[in-house]
C-alpha cells in the first residue's frame, strides 16, 4: 500500500525538489487526552500568559511559535527521516515533512532551516541536546548551515527564541512528591502522568529507525512508516499541550490536572 493512500496527504512543492508533507488540523489527529486538554487550555498559549511564565519570550514580537520534533534513522550522525512542526499563530496547524528516501533528506533539511530560521520562537523537548543538535550536524554534513551569521549551531542561531521544555518538565515534576518514582523524563512518560493518557498500539521509539530503513529499501510496505508519521505528529501536539500545562501551572490548585 502506498503512503499517499494511507495518509491522504498533500505533496508540497518545496524548492526545486518535491517534499512530501503531511498537513493536518488538530481535530484530525488521534490523540484524545492531549487534544482535549489542549482545547480546554488553549487560552494559556496566548502571548501575555506565555510571557508571564517564560521570560525569554518577552523579547519576541507576536507572530508564530513553532513546536519542533524530529525522527532519525539511528544514533550518532544518522540521517533525519522526518520533522514535525506545530505552527501556533491565530490558529494551529500541524505538518510533518517526510524524506521518502535518503536523497530527499537534503530538501527536508532546507525546509527545516527555512522554517526554524523564520520562526519567532521554537519550542522543543530535549531540543538542546537532541533535535537542534542533530539538525545542526546534518545541515553541516550537507554544507547547508549558514556560515555568514557567526553562529556554529542552530541553538546559538536561535538563541533566546528557543525554549526547551525538558528543563521545565524536570523542574516541575521533580518537585512534586507524587512523581518521585518517575523512571525517566521522556515525552511519553511525562505525557502519561500529566495528561493521564496512554498511546495504544503505537510503534516504539527503538523500532523507528529500522522501520524507516525497511521502507526506503522497499523491504516493507508503507503502513509502518505511516504509523511513525502519526507518532511524530502526536509528539508535536503533546509539546504544545505541555507548554500550555506549564503556563497554567501557577494558577492550578494542587492535584487537579
Amino acid at each position, binding site marked *: 500500500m502506498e503512503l499517499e493512500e494511507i495518509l491522504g496527504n498533500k505533496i508540497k512543492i518545496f524548492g526545486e525538489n*518535491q517534499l512530501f508533507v503531511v498537513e493536518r488540523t488538530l481535530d484530525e489527529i488521534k490523540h484524545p487526552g492531549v487534544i482535549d486538554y489542549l482545547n480546554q487550555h488553549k487560552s494559556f498559549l496566548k502571548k501575555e500568559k506565555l510571557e508571564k511564565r517564560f521570560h525569554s519570550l518577552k523579547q519576541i514580537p507576536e507572530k508564530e511559535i513553532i513546536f519542533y520534533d524530529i525522527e532519525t534513522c539511528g544514533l550518532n*550522525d544518522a540521517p533525519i527521516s522526518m520533522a514535525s512542526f506545530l505552527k501556533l499563530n491565530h490558529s494551529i496547524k500541524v505538518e510533518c515533512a517526510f524524506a521518502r*528516501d*535518503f*536523497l530527499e533528506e537534503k530538501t527536508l533539511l532546507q525546509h527545516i532551516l527555512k522554517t526554524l530560521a523564520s520562526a519567532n520562537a521554537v519550542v522543543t523537548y530535549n531540543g538542546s541536546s537532541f533535535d537542534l543538535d542533530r539538525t545542526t550536524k546534518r545541515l553541516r554534513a550537507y*554544507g547547508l548551515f549558514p556560515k555568514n551569521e557567526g553562529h556554529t549551531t542552530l541553538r546559538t542561531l536561535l538563541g533566546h527564541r528557543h525554549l526547551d521544555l525538558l528543563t521545565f518538565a524536570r523542574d516541575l515534576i521533580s518537585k512534586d512528591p507524587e512523581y518521585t518514582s518517575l523512571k525517566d523524563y521522556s515525552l511519553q512518560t511525562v505525557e502519561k502522568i500529566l495528561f493521564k493518557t496512554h498511546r495504544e498500539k503505537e510503534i516504539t521509539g527503538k523500532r523507528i529507525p529500522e522501520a524507516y530503513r525497511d521502507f526506503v529499501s522497499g*523491504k516493507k510496505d508503507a503502513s509502518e512508516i505511516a504509523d511513525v508519521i502519526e507518532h511524530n505528529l502526536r509528539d508535536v501536539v503533546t509539546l504544545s499541550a505541555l507548554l500550555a500545562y506549564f503556563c497554567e501551572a501557577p494558577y492550578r490548585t494542587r492535584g487537579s490536572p
Partner: protein
Amino acid sequence: MPHPSTTITENGHYTIRNHARGGKTIYGPHLRKRGVYIPSDEKIRKRGLKEYNNNKKLSKTTMTYLGYRSLAEPNITKREVNIARKAIGLRGPKRKNSLEHNNGEYYIRPDEIKRTITSFWKHEKVQRYLNGQKQNLPRIVDFEKQFRSVYNCIIRTGRFGDTLESIYPGLYALLSKRTNSETINPRQLAEDLKFTLYTGNNLLTRGCLEKGTPEEKRLKNQILFMMHHFPKYRKLSFCKSITKLTGIPESELKDISNGIQQCAQIGEKITQLYFTWALATGLKNPWITNLGIYETEQSRTAYIYDSQKHLGIADRRIGDLAIEVKIGKRKFSPESIDTLCSKYTPNENRWESGEIIPDSFIFFHMDEQFHSLASPVLKNVGIRYVKKEAFRPELINLVNLLEKDYSSEILDIQMPRIHKVSSLLDIYEEISDPTNLGFLMMNKLRDRREFMLDLLNEVISLGEHRINHGA
C-alpha cells in the same frame, strides 16, 4: 674515639662526620653500617673539572661521590648529583657550540656564519622586505643548498631561526612562512579544519602536501607544527590531533577513503546507466556509433599495457572500446596524465582476451578546471574524452525520455523505492559538482551514497533486462 677536630652533624635521617681535612663519612638508612667516606669538596671539584676537560663528562666514581655528597645538604632524602654539584661549586657539562669540534664535524666561527648570512641576504634588501616593500628574497632552502656546511653547523647547535633572528630580527618568521606557536590559534584552526573537512577536502592523504591547495597545505603544516611544539599534541598521531582539535571522530576521518571509492562507483554507474538505457531505448549518442553491451566483468575489462608489462582494469568496455570514468575535485598530476596516456593510447594496448583496443573514451564528470591540464595531452595522443558539459545534456535527454515513456516501469522498482525519475539527474548533479561531491564523500552521508548505488544498480538492471528480453 673520634679525632678532636672531627665534628658530627645530623641531617634528617643521616649523620655526617666531618673530618679534619675536609672529607666526610655519612651514616644513615640504605648505607653500609660503617658509613660511606667521600673526599673533601675541593678534591671532588678538582676531579670533576679534570674529567670535564679530558672526557667532557664525569666518571662514575665522581658521580658516586657527588651522589653521597648531596646527602649532606639540607632536606635531601635521596641522592641527587646536580644538587651536590651546585653545592660544591662544580660547573655543569659544557654545551656544544659552533666553535667546537665534535667527532670531526666541520665547524665555523660565528663571525663567519654572520658574514655568510649577510652576504646571502643583503642588508638593504632585507630592510625593504621587512618594511613591507616588494622584494624577492632567496628562501631558507636556497641558503641550505648553497651553504650546506654553514647551515648544518648552525642547526647542530641550535635553531636556524634563532641565528637568523639575531642578525635580522623578524626575518625568519616572514621567510620561513611557517607558523609559530604565537600565530597558531587552536580554536581558529579547529574552525578552519571543520570547514575544510565539511567541504570534503582531505587532509589525511600524504599527497595533500604535494598536490593540495595552498589552504590545505597551510592547515596541514599548522597541525604538524602543533604536533611538534604543543605539549598536548606531542604524543598524538596526525589523525588524533585533528580529532582532538575538531571533535570529529577518528573513524569518520578515516572513512573518507571509503567515501571516495563509493563516489567513484557512482560516477561509473551513471555512465553505465546512460549507455545501457541508450541501447535499450535506441537513443542516439554523439560518441559511440555501434553501441553494444556495456561490459563490467573484470575478465572482460582487463587489458595489458606499457609494452605488455602491466595488467590494467578499465572501468567499463563497450565492444572493444575502453571506457574510463573520472570524478573528483583535484587537478590531474603530470604522472597521472602519463599513466592515462600509456593505458589508453589507441591501438597500442590489448585486452587480456587478445583483441586490440582500437579506441578509448574518458568521461570527465568534473569541472573543466580539474582536467584542463590533462585534456590537451590526451587529445594529442588520440584518446577521446567527454566533458561534463557535453555529457550532461545527453543525460538530460535520456532522463526526459525515461520520464516520458518508461516512468511507470522505473517507479515500479520497489527495492529501493524510487519516487521520481529525475532523481537520476540529481545524482549526476551531485557527483559532478565539486562542492557537493566533497560532502558526499564524508562518512555522514554514507546512507545517501549507498542508496544512490542501490538505485542506480536497480535502474541499470532494468535496462539490461529490456535489452536481453525486450519490453
